[in-house]
């Protein structure tokens, strides 16, 4: 059995009066590519933030590689939602990616040419080499997302958390990002992704975490991602688009 990279026990969190998360328990094995799926307001982003100490937890404990967060911070990478920063900030794509190296560069020291080179290679990997000098305000949504992923990539972490990296990006960016995630998995890294598109879950993730304020089910996608479990997560409000679309397509064949 693979090493447990993330152990969450009895985690709960709230915003003011509302409890957003309660009794969250799961264990993630190394090398998993996990999709976190649930309806709006299910606490998906809050779960990531609480795990990463960006939002206070009410109860529970989180262990990474068997250790507390501050001991292993450098092995953890986080890709926030694209809308969480001000893209009007005066800087270019290469500079943002270089920020991923700040931990390795050391505080108060300046990035060297070698660091810039590393950052450029990460941009290249995401097909963004031509945009290295581009102002971040002049990048499209998909390009901004790629810049964020390149920044996470240079961190060279073992465990990644990504908050909706596929939200509002075009098909080409989605392919580029998924190729990257599968490469990371192939390297033995663990990636947890907040995801909202139910139709692609089975193609993209080997594990799935169904969340609605608490863990409804967690496990291998093939076993867990069933119609019944999804209904339980979404409260039965879901329309079965996949089947409907099959009905439409069948006559053409």
């Amino acid at each position: 059995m693979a090493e447990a990279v993330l152990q969450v026990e009895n985690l709960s969190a709230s915003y003011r009066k509302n409890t957003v998360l309660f009794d969250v328990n799961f264990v993630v094995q190394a090398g998993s590519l996990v999709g976190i799926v649930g309806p709006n307001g299910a606490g998906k982003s809050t779960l990531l933030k609480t795990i990463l100490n960006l939002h206070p937890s009410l109860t529970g404990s989180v262990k990474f590689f068997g250790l507390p967060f501050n001991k292993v911070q450098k092995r953890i990478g986080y890709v926030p939602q694209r809308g969480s920063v001000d893209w009007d900030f005066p800087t270019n794509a290469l500079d943002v990616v270089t920020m991923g190296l700040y931990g390795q560069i050391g505080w108060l020291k300046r990035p060297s040419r070698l660091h810039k080179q590393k950052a450029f290679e990460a941009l290249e990997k995401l097909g963004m080499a031509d945009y290295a000098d581009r102002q971040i305000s002049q990048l499209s949504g998909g390009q901004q997302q790629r810049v964020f992923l390149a920044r996470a990539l240079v961190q060279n972490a073992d465990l990644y958390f990504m908050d909706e990296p596929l939200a509002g990006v075009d098909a080409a960016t989605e392919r580029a990002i998924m190729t990257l995630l599968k490469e990371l998995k192939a390297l033995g890294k663990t990636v947890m992704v907040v995801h909202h598109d139910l139709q692609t879950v089975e193609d993209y993730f080997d594990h799935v975490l169904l969340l609605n304020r608490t863990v409804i089910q967690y496990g291998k996608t093939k076993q867990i991602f069933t119609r019944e479990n999804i209904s339980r997560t979404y409260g039965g409000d879901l329309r079965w688009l996949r089947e409907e679309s099959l009905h439409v397509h069948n006559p053409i064949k």
Partner: protein
Amino acid sequence: MFTILLNSNTQWVLFSTMIFGIAAGTMGCLAYWKRQSLMSDALAHAALPGVVIAFLLLGEKNLFVMIIGASISALIGASFIQWIRSSTRISADTAMGMVLSIFFGLGIMLLTVVNRTSGGNQSGLDSFIFGQAASMVRSDVTTMLILALAVILIVFIAFKEWKIYLFDPEFAKGLGLSLKWMNGLYTTILVTTIVIGIQAVGVILIAALLIIPSVSARYWTQSFQRMIIISALFGGAAGALGTFISALGRGWPTGPFIVIVASALFFLSLFFGKEKGILVKYLQLKMQKRLVNIHTSKALRTKGVE
């Protein structure tokens, strides 16, 4: 008119307001990207009661003690704003507006009391409202210089840290940068910048020197580093030039002239700035229109040939 420049005291005062302008321009860029421009105004006003209370306790004017009084009072104002925002349903801008006016009102009330007491009206405390650089003595200048240089140094040494702290604080935290420390340091140097400028520029207008140079600099560059440098230059120029003009007349307040010079630089930037300045935008639009016209007429001509 330029003979006043030969006076060594004037030279020192000019030099110190210039360095202060540079510090304010630098700090202003941080406040701009922290989206806290108004916060600096609230803190400046909140500093006034501290200045007067420090004078009352000491019985004489000593800039260093008054700076400490101003800092304490500004920090109390800041924590009030923080407390109102986090534990009531009042929003941040309302909280700032309340703290700004309440503290300023308290300061003016105390000032009136001081001015009524014997000898109080010669204290020169009035100069803390609109600023009077000429009233500064050599020791005041030294205090101001040292603290202003310290602020500039802190920003430049930790430049990369400030950048990531302002652009993406959550990511910075993930890298191990302590947001608690950065917030503390930010508030400390913001308050320092404000209180050292109070005597020269005055509590009412000091925020302008933090806000205007950084906004002006935004029109000239797309790099954070250059934005800070340009903002520092604008702040320094406004500080020195404004002080010089105010020194031409007897008893002219310094603050308003500094702000007028800073505003002139702002309007220059707004019209002629190369990044989205009004003139550049207009010319670019005109050129685009011409290009489109050329393309369409070309397309029409080729169609005609067919």
